[in-house]
């Protein structure tokens, strides 16, 4: 693996007699989103503040590209600081500035942009976060969710290289929560920034993160990919994740990924024990990013929600559909072979129409919503992993709508 962008080495931080961080070691890699999970009060925010230099460790060090932050000269630190952006848990919006001035502040103070450019950039960020006509309002006049999105807009307006998010979605409704996640993921793909997210949103953060680290009792007790964290045998991690996971996906209302995986395992067991065949269908929304770009992330997530609802309404009681990934819904069809699964897809494509997906106000020109389907049938000697990789490969567009 490459050299880490940020390394945290044996960081210890105590407040009085309370040692919050007790020898934390963590590596953050360039261009990846790393999520730090863990129970409340375990020092996740404190760790994040060490990375940006708001707090200094009692012992241990934080290195940026192999160089310790403390040994950097003032100018070097200045250059480094401008690469960072921080989304505070409690938003930390300036209460004496209005929304526009809040978002424009980092541009006005640190860049040579002219006023019209700043205005455009601020407007652009506000619209991407589904915020309209609030430029002249003060933070105290906004709801909690709106403040959160204004804070996000302020953090992203400078197009930073490294963004630290301290619980960016706490207090948001499910659609906006996933819209923010999808925006973070979308931005990361487009601009390749490095993201560090402190979050309790499980499993949502697994969809957008490349690495997960769990902080417990002042130390990192687990570090790995989202797949690894979900399959780990470590009882501490398992209990924490199970405790937070709901049986239903918050956005779409279909079953959650973990429930779907359990059902898949059960069907596999039934197949091996009772020779009952089953098929899986993976429905992927191919151009959710285009919808996000044209109509905004909220419209994108609403379309995904509508699509998931449509699928849920078109399956039998014995079938199950669950959220497999950020933009993927999987359907498990018991007692169904591959031909019948194909017929199920045909039925879906016949019944699906634009009105079911988009609200009339979002039917903007250039909007495209395409769904591809991959089908796989489980056979006696099938493994779940190979089935899943097959179903991911065998995708073809089965329904598309363009406006």
């Amino acid at each position, binding site marked *: 693996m490459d050299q880490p962008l940020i390394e945290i080495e044996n960081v210890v931080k105590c407040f009085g007699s309370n040692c919050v961080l007790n020898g934390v070691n963590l590596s953050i890699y360039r261009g990846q989103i790393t999520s730090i999970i863990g129970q409340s009060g375990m020092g996740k925010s404190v760790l994040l503040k060490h990375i940006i230099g*708001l707090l200094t460790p009692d012992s241990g060090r934080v290195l940026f590209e192999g160089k310790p932050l403390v040994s950097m000269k003032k100018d070097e630190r200045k250059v480094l*600081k401008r690469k960072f*952006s*921080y989304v*505070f848990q409690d938003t*930390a919006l*300036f*209460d004496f500035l209005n929304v526009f001035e809040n978002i424009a*502040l980092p541009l006005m*103070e640190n860049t040579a942009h002219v006023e019209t450019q700043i205005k455009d950039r601020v407007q652009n960020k506000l619209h991407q976060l589904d915020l309209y006509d609030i430029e002249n309002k003060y933070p105290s006049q906004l709801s909690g969710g709106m403040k959160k999105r204004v804070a996000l807009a302020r953090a992203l307006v400078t197009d930073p290289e490294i963004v630290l998010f301290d619980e960016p979605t706490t207090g948001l409704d499910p659609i906006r929560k996933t819209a923010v996640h999808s925006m973070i993921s979308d931005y990361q793909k487009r601009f390749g920034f490095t993201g560090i997210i402190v979050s309790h949103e499980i499993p949502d953060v697994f969809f957008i993160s490349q690495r997960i680290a769990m902080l417990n009792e002042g130390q990192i007790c687990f570090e790995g990919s989202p797949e690894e964290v979900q399959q780990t045998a470590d009882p501490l991690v398992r209990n924490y994740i199970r405790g937070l996971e709901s049986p239903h996906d918050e956005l779409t209302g279909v079953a959650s990924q973990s429930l779907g995986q359990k059902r898949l395992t059960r069907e596999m067991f039934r197949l091996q024990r009772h020779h009952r065949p089953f098929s899986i269908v993976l429905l992927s929304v191919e151009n959710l990013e285009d919808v996000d770009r044209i109509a905004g992330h909220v419209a994108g997530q609403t379309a995904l929600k509508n699509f998931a609802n449509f699928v849920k309404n078109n399956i039998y009681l014995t079938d199950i559909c669950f959220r497999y990934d950020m933009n993927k819904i999987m359907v498990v069809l018991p007692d169904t072979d591959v031909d019948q699964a194909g017929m199920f897809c045909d039925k879906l494509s016949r019944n699906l129409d634009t009105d079911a997906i988009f609200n009339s106000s979002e039917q903007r020109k250039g909007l495209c919503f395409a769904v591809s389907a991959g089908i796989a049938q489980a056979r006696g000697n099938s493994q779940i992993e190979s089935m899943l990789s097959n179903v991911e490969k065998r995708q073809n567009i089965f329904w598309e709508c363009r406006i």
Partner: protein
Amino acid sequence: MELLVAIKNPLVALGRYTMVFVQDLGRIVLYFFKGFILIFSLPLQVNKILQQIYFIGMKSVFVVCLTGAFTGMVLGLQGYYLLVKYGSTGILGSAVALSLVREMGPVLAAVMVIARGGSAMAAEIGIMRISEQIDALETMDIDPIRYLVSPRIAAALISFPLLTALFDVVGILGGYLTGSVLLGVNPELYFSRVESSVALADVSGGFIKSIVFAAIVVSICCYQGFYTHTRTEFGAKGVSQSTTSAVVLSCVMILIADYALTSFLL
């Protein structure tokens, strides 16, 4: 716990408090100089300085006029009844003008600004500290001292002498009101005594005092708010503690500085 130590060994406690106080004063002086130097860093924050002049200076005009008028009136009254015993009511103008220009103008104008603007500064910056707004400035690579403190220092250094001048003028008119209009001292004599007794050195001495007071008030008030998070109390209580100590410490330091300056200027 601290109380126990103080009861058991008062000298140790006194020494400890003195050390902390002196250390704090040193930090406040450094804090002021940093803020002062950053006033001149480019680009100049003209708009922010003007806003603060409006807040510290303009909004204090009414209260300064009011207190100035009553101070002058009381001086006229007290001065008259003292001087009438010696048959020298003619020098009432000198007595009122010199006490105002040299002493009461700078001190009372500063105290009024502490009550109005200083407490507000400490509370505003303190709230920004506890709601992480100052941390947010740091993460954006905006120097919080330059952004928050420097405009206030510049505005105070400009506003204090002007408010002092206003206080003096209104006070002298107040003295005239009681001395001449109510108690019958010859108005021409009153004003000619004012003119002949107040030398340029008195006026410039008063201005030097007001500039020093401006530096003391603004640095103590901003400092107390800025370091709210290091207090023993947290949140709103921490802010109230900061505001209280900002007001008390600035008033005490102004009176101490006034004595020191007077002994140098006389």
